[in-house]
Structure formats: structure tokens, C-alpha cells
């Protein structure tokens, strides 16, 4: 009898602890225009990179370390997808992005970007490749490599590797300059470009450099450092891009045919050792970014909000930050960023953001988390 009060207190304490945990998970976040809660799907993926939402409700997610995983009913299936190519994992290398064919329901094509491992004599290291395959019995079948980046290098930096289809069905993808910045200005190597190909890997006849001797024919724009974000602007049909700049020079760009985006001739950033990289931020014949971030946020991917779940955010861009572990919501007016709001502070290094088949925004963070943004009261 003497101990009864202790029991009571223990229960009260336990109960209140459970309630606090619950309320934290369900805590309503009041942002400028929208109140929302976060639904967290715990994954065992340390570094998620790409997401794809299948018509049957499954979510595909890549683990940079080289595995393709399936999330079904908010649980990561223990068995990874079989048949994934071997990847080069030095530094930023690994298994990257996923993209469904616009006609996926009919043809089943899944596009995958990855750092391929050099397998030819005289080649060493890794380089970005683009492939497509179909998912059957948890295995990648009918694999076709559509684009092989070159040259290979042992460097572990700047693979780019984001993919996005446009409204006409062209596939855009990016390759970073692989730590060799001068090559971003050469049309003869794959470093530092955004590409445009047909869904089967063939080169569109109206690509800007098809008649340029020695040029990589799939190239669509050049002078990029490390573009890890590509998103179709649903209103204008333009391809928008985010890229990692040097210290203090991350950029948001609109990708235009045949244009030069300046790296390393112009930049708003400086070298990581504090030395000046270029004194120029503007140069004739070189595109200016829509905006740049100083300090750099280490921007990975971006997405345009089109879903009816978030009428308050419709037409906005969500950009994710690896460095500040948050996302930024950008409001646009006439193709310019007019307002910025930082959200989800401290969630973790955010690698990608995407809109699911269910219309919800999904944010993948390093540290085994995938969260779904749920508008409050809906």
C-alpha cells in the first residue's frame, strides 16, 4: 500500500511521456500560409537520393550506397530490388535518381541514374550513366543503358545526375563537372552539362550542338558546376535547375537551349579556401541565374507545387538544402523569386523533395527519414 502512490506517479509520468512524444510527432507547424503536420516514414536508408511514386501506391527510393528499395504501406520492404548496377561510391558517387516514363502505366519504363564503375582498360573511377529498365518480380529487367558519361575519373565530386521529363516527353538530365571545372566550358566532354534525349536514348534532331564538330550531341546547355536539381515548370513548360556553386554561389536557373551558364568563368561564389575564383559575376553571352544563395545552402533538388492539397502553396517552388537541413519555399512572380520562407528547420540533410501520386509533398532526409507534409485539418 505504501508504494501505491509511486505506481500511480510512474503511470502518470509514462502516460505524459507517451503523450508528449505523440504530440511532437503530430505537432502542428504553423507556417506563413499553411498549418501542417509531418508524417514520418522511418527508413533504414542513410543517404536517400531519388524517389519515384508508382501507380500502385508503392514508393521507390534509392540509397546512395547502391540499393533500390520499395516502400509499401509506409514500410520499407526488407528485400532490395535485384539487378541494380554496381555503383562507384567514392565521395558523392553512388546510386542516384529515379524517374518514371510519362507513360509508365502503359510501358513500365523506370529511368535510373548512377555513378558507373570504370570497366575498360585505361579507365579508372566513376562517371554518371543513365539507364532504363522495367520492374518485374522485384528485379530490374530489360535493362538498357541510354547514356554513358565520359571521361571517367577517380574524383568523388559533382556527378549531377538529376532527371526530369518535359511536356514533350524529352528526358533531361544533368552531369556535374566532376571536379574539373574547365571542362564545363568544353562541348567535347560530358562534364558540367544538362542533357536532353529521347525516351529511348536517341538524340533529338533539334538539339543545339548536333551540328557542332566534336560536341557531345546530347548536350543541351553547358557551363554548370554540379546541377542536382531539375524540375519542369508546369505553367511555362521550362526546365528549372538548381546547382551547387562554390562557397556562396548556389544557383537557380532556367535551362535554355544551347546556353552557357558560366561555370567557372563567372560565379557569385568563391573557392572553399577563400581565394577568389573569378572576379566576374556577369559576362556577355553568359546566362544569369534567377537567383543565387549566399551563403550556399547546398541545394539538392527542387519541385514545383501543383497539388490541390496545398492551394496556399500552388505554383511555388520547394528547394531542399543539405547544409541548413531545411527546405525553402519560393514564391514566384513573372519568373522571379519574390518571397522566400524557410521550413522544416533541422529535419536533416535534405536530399530530395517530390510530389507523390497522392498529391502530398515528400521530403527525404539523411538519417533514415522520409516525411510527408500533411495540411492540418485535412
Amino acid at each position, binding site marked *: 500500500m505504501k508504494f501505491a502512490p509511486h505506481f500511480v506517479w510512474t503511470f502518470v509520468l509514462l502516460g505524459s511521456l507517451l503523450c508528449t512524444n505523440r504530440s511532437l510527432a503530430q505537432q502542428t507547424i504553423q507556417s506563413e500560409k499553411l498549418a501542417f503536420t509531418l508524417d514520418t516514414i522511418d527508413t533504414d536508408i542513410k*543517404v536517400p537520393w531519388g524517389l519515384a511514386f508508382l501507380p500502385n501506391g508503392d514508393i521507390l527510393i534509392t540509397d546512395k550506397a547502391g540499393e533500390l528499395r520499395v516502400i509499401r504501406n509506409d514500410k520499407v520492404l526488407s528485400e532490395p530490388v535485384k539487378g541494380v548496377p554496381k555503383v562507384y561510391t567514392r565521395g558523392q558517387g553512388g546510386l542516384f535518381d529515379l524517374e518514371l516514363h510519362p507513360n509508365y502505366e502503359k510501358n513500365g519504363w523506370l529511368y535510373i541514374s548512377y555513378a558507373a564503375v570504370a570497366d575498360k582498360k585505361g579507365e579508372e573511377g566513376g562517371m554518371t550513366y543513365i539507364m532504363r529498365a522495367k520492374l518485374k518480380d522485384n528485379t530490374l529487367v530489360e535493362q538498357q543503358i541510354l547514356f554513358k558519361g565520359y571521361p571517367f575519373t577517380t*574524383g*568523388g565530386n559533382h556527378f549531377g545526375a538529376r532527371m526530369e521529363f518535359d511536356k514533350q516527353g524529352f528526358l533531361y538530365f544533368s552531369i556535374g563537372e566532376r571536379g574539373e571545372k574547365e571542362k564545363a566550358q568544353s562541348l567535347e566532354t560530358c562534364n558540367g552539362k544538362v542533357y536532353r534525349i529521347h525516351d529511348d536514348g536517341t538524340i533529338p534532331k533539334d538539339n543545339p550542338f548536333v551540328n557542332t564538330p566534336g560536341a557531345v550531341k546530347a548536350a543541351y546547355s553547358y557551363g554548370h558546376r554540379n546541377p542536382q536539381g531539375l524540375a519542369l515548370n508546369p505553367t511555362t513548360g521550362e526546365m528549372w535547375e538548381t546547382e551547387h556553386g562554390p562557397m556562396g554561389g548556389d544557383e537557380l536557373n532556367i535551362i535554355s537551349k544551347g546556353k552557357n551558364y558560366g561555370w567557372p568563368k563567372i560565379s557569385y561564389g568563391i573557392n572553399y579556401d577563400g581565394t577568389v575564383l573569378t572576379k566576374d559575376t556577369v559576362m556577355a553571352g553568359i546566362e544569369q541565374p534567377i537567383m543565387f544563395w549566399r551563403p550556399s545552402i547546398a541545394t539538392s533538388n527542387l519541385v514545383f507545387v501543383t497539388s490541390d492539397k496545398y492551394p496556399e502553396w500552388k505554383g511555388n517552388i520547394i528547394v531542399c538544402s543539405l*547544409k541548413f537541413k531545411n527546405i525553402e519555399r519560393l514564391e514566384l512572380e513573372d519568373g522571379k523569386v519574390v518571397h522566400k520562407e524557410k521550413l522544416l528547420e533541422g529535419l536533416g540533410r535534405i536530399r530530395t523533395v517530390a510530389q507523390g501520386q497522392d498529391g502530398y509533398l515528400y521530403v527525404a532526409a539523411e538519417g533514415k527519414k522520409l516525411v510527408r507534409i500533411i495540411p492540418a485539418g485535412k
Partner: protein
Amino acid sequence: MSRFWFVLIFCASILFSTAFVPYQDGELSKSMARGKEVYTELCVTCHLVDGKGMEGAFPPLAGSDFLMKNPQKAIHAIKFGLEGEITVNGQTYNNVMPAPGLNNQEVADVMNYILNSWGNKGKLVSLKSVEAVKE
């Protein structure tokens, strides 16, 4: 006059010896030089060129008690990645450092660089001691 020469030679020899002292340890300095390249390629974007990191996000390496007291843990972090809460110089960090995918020699080199830069002073990390650290 001979005293003058004696003093001159004496001073010169002191000057020369101090100039060369840091380079006598060839193994360490060679490893540090290779380590600096790895650092500049893969570590500098977060830990920065001065090793100070970013408070609250990326822990410092310069003057870091975590690094200097537990080189084994640092080797483990570089080999296999690090996640979860750690305390560095009294400040807690809860982040993910993905394994940078280095071979063991590169881990030793980059360890030697960070243990002996920005005022840090550590013992030579050998290839063997890196190989001995298991997941």
C-alpha cells in the same frame, strides 16, 4: 676574428635546423600532403578550409576534443560514416556524415592531415591502425 665566424656559423646552423625540423618527419609530412588533397576533394565543403566547420551543423576538426581524444572513433567515422548525436567541444551535433568511400591509405592520410593541421598535434596514424578499425 675567428670568434666572429664561429658566431656566424652557430647562428646559421640554428636557423637552418629550425627551418628543417618540420620536414624531418618525412613519413608524416608526405602522408599529410596526400591527406590534404583528399580533404580538399571531399571534406572541405562541410568542415571548411580552416577546419572550423559550422556551429550546430558540421563539427569543427580544428581544436576538436572529439577528434584529438578519440582518433579511433574518427577513423571509424571516416571508414564507415557517422550518424547520431555526438558532443564536440561541449556542443552537441546530430547529423549524418556519409562514408566518403576512401581506401585505408587515404583514411590514414586524411587523418594525419586533420590531426596535424590548424594547431592540432597528433600521433602518426599508420595504414595498419586504419585496417584494424572494424565496423
